[in-house]
């Protein structure tokens, strides 16, 4: 090896490149053996490379263009090697067992309390900004400076108006505008348009200020006809959403004061009206616009198309209105955009059968105008063809076609309705029981940035609940458990319905031995106080006989469940015993030969006023016979007689035949027999 190395060295030393020399020096100064290997391999490569051009005909060696890497390329490559950790909780939380949320309500509570801590800090930062002015950061980080909440410019001027519009103070801006007009200074059309935009966007209310609690009281007084909300901010947000366009509000008043409203002013007004529900007014404003011989812009048309289904009743009338608007759009040479397409599709959802026939032509026309579909368009398309609750009539191929188009692509948020796509698609998969498409939908979630389009926590919960229900129904238990372990509880906290579906799936696949593990998960998720879930669990355990190990684990589980039923620590009763649940529990204990525990449980029948069934007592008697405890057998008969069960005589007979009784016991039994005979 050394000789060949030296030979190759001599051969190449004349045409050795700088790289080779460096390589040689490095390897021979550091480690000997490894260096020799790399050197020889690099010699081999070089020799091959050198030989090749000589062998082949003089071809052009195309040197590829130098690739430029972004600054984060290495970090991105490293990040792509790390997958999600299924044992960790969400990134927001601390990595500690005491601080990890175990149920979905804890998840919400912890994330909200962290958020409220941040808001408290922001309140202090914005109230005392002078302590936070010193700037250490180079370059300057603007988001870490205190916010200026108070308007700086005090004098009545246009600049002050612009400032207040920028700070989103609706009432202050309107007041300032009125002051300006009274003082006689004219406000330019641009600034007035901005003011109109502000008022129409917020519907003449101030946006909810979170850090200033005293303003909230003023606004609840201002808004009339609103029911007195005891809840505070939650009710306030929904009030804002349902806020309607009031009759004589500032937007219309200021609009009327304008001498020459232009397209932008009309556009702001129409969009505000549509947003807050004044649909017919929007259309009348549009006719005013046409009468003033102005052209509308694309946003106006989008708003009008959204409003079209609200003003007409019949399906074809709605469609005709939309077609009319689109034709006017073409006449005025306004180019439609993605939001136009989405508005048309959303309106078609409310058009019944017309929607189904017109959806594809609309899409092909828009594609001809080179508008790319977003996830919202696909979501509307799916909703047009798959109405919730309607019977499926062989339309499964539409979902497949949509998935074919969408798979492998990464989408960016372009429309607020994009977040509905995944939930709608999963609902359709659940209704049509299509497992393959469900997997494709879930795969799409992993592509690129699509995870952002899953929506907030509530929507995420719905998506995963549907996915899990589908899995429980369609897949076998091993696949189901693999998904379960992957997603629960790091991404999703199942509800009690989903846990019931899981139990059904276990039952179908005959894996009832996994029940004790599932019970532990149920307890951890906080569903242990659901009556029907626990009763179903007990029924499944008691139904069949399994081998010894499984029965033992069932018995442990049953005793654990019993603890839940007993009074909680503050005397609060979480669950109520029923006859069925008691019998199931006792059968499970008997099957594992825990006679003493079962005997204690039997006493509970009396205390909770429930009646045991005949077969339960028969089973008990069989178990007692195996152990040969005569006293207990007699007591059993006494209990049965105490409940006046119809099966008492048979029980007495069995005891008399199968057990060796003392005189006293025989006499007692015959008394009971006569008693029961008389009572019948």
């Amino acid at each position: 090896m050394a000789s060949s190395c030296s030979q190759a060295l001599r051969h190449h030393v004349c045409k050795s490149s700088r790289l080779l020399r460096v390589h040689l020096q490095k390897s021979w100064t550091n480690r000997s053996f490894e260096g020799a290997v790399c050197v020889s391999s690099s010699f081999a490569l070089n020799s091959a490379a050198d030989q090749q051009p000589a062998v082949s005909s003089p071809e052009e060696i195309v040197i590829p263009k130098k690739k430029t890497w972004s600054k984060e390329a290495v970090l991105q490559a490293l990040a792509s090697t790390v997958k999600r950790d299924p044992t960790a909780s969400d990134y927001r939380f601390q990595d500690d067992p005491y601080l990890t949320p175990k149920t979905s309500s804890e998840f919400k509570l912890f994330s909200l309390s962290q958020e409220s801590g941040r808001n408290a800090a922001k309140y202090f930062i914005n109230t005392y900004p002078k302590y936070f002015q010193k700037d250490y950061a180079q370059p300057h980080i603007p988001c870490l400076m205190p916010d200026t909440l108070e308007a700086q410019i005090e004098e009545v001027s246009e600049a002050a108006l612009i400032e207040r519009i920028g700070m989103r103070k609706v009432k202050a801006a309107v007041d300032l505008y009125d002051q300006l007009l009274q003082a006689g200074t004219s406000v330019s059309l641009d600034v007035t348009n901005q003011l109109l935009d502000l008022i129409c966007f917020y519907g003449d209310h101030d946006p909810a200020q979170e850090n200033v609690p005293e303003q909230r009281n003023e606004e609840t007084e201002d808004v009339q006809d609103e029911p007195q909300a005891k809840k505070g901010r939650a009710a306030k947000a929904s009030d804002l959403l349902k806020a309607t366009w009031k009759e004589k509000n500032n937007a219309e008043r200021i609009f009327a004061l304008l001498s020459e409203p232009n397209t932008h002013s009309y556009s702001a007004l129409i969009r505000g009206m549509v947003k807050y529900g004044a649909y017919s007014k929007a259309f009348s404003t549009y006719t005013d616009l046409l009468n003033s011989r102005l052209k509308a812009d694309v946003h106006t048309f989008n708003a009008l198309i959204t409003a079209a289904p609200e003003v007409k009743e019949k399906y074809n009338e709605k469609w005709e209105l939309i077609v009319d608007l689109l034709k006017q759009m073409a006449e005025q040479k306004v180019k439609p955009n993605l939001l136009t397409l989405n508005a048309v599709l959303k309106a078609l959802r409310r058009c019944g059968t017309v929607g189904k026939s017109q959806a594809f032509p609309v899409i092909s026309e828009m594609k001809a105008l080179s508008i790319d579909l977003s996830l919202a368009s696909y979501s509307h398309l799916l909703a047009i063809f798959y109405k919730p609750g309607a019977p499926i009539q062989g339309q499964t191929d539409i979902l497949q076609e949509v998935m074919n188009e969408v798979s492998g692509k990464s989408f960016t948020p372009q429309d607020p309705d994009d977040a509905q796509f995944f939930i709608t698609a999963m609902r359709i998969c659940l209704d049509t029981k299509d497992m393959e498409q469900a997997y494709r939908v879930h795969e799409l979630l992993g592509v690129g940035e699509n995870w952002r389009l899953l929506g907030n926590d509530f929507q995420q919960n719905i998506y995963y609940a549907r996915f899990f229900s589908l899995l429980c129904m369609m897949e076998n238990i091993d696949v189901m458990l693999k998904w379960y372990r992957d997603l629960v509880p790091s991404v999703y906290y199942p509800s009690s319905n989903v846990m019931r579906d899981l139990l059904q799936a276990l039952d179908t696949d005959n894996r009832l031995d996994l029940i004790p593990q599932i019970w532990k998960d149920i307890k951890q998720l906080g569903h242990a106080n659901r009556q029907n879930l626990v009763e179903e669990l007990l029924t499944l355990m008691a139904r069949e006989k399994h081998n010894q190990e499984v029965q033992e684990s069932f018995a442990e589980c049953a005793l654990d469940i019993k603890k839940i039923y007993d009074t909680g620590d503050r005397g609060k009763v979480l669950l109520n015993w029923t006859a069925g649940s008691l019998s199931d529990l006792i059968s499970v204990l008997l099957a594992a030969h825990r006679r003493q525990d079962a005997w204690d449980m039997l006493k509970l029948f009396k205390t909770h006023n429930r009646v045991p069934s005949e077969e339960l007592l028969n089973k008990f008697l069989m178990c007692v016979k195996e152990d040969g405890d005569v006293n207990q057998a007699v007591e059993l008969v006494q209990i049965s007689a105490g409940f006046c069960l119809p099966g008492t005589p048979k029980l007495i007979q069995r005891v008399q035949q199968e057990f060796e009784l003392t005189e006293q016991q025989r006499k007692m039994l015959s008394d009971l027999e006569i008693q029961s005979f008389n009572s019948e």
Partner: protein
Amino acid sequence: MATSLVRQTKLLSIVTSQLSSAACFRNIHCTAACLKNRAARIRVAKGDKPVTYEQAYHPHHIGHRKGWLSQHTSNLQGEDGAAERVVEDVFIRRFMYGTFHGCLADEIVIKRRGNLLVICAVMIQKLLPSKFYFLIGYTEELLSHFYKCPVKIEMQTVEEKVVYKYL
């Protein structure tokens, strides 16, 4: 009276100059005495005082049996800003002690990675987790805005203070 004061200060300046020139260097002590052989040491007492691992080992054990409580690169050759880091650390420790009052089980470890300031704390499970999260969100936000750099808290909880020995 003014003349007597002037005379006294003159006397003082003469005395100090004579002292410093006379090769005996005992000067006037203006602050409280902080002896370096009594710093961060808990002396052995009756045997009923519980002491954590951090407190039990003395400063000369740092690097041998203890780690560092504050990790940054300003003490390396050619780096500056060591004094500012110290002041920041002192502020952060007092801030954490006050915000999470009674919950700290041990000293806070402060790590600086690039721009990021990581505060590692071990807490006693004295508060509900939701209250812990409130304080964590508050601290992170406030300190980020104060120091103009991202601040993260990494918290671990224990049931009670971990006692190493009794001194």
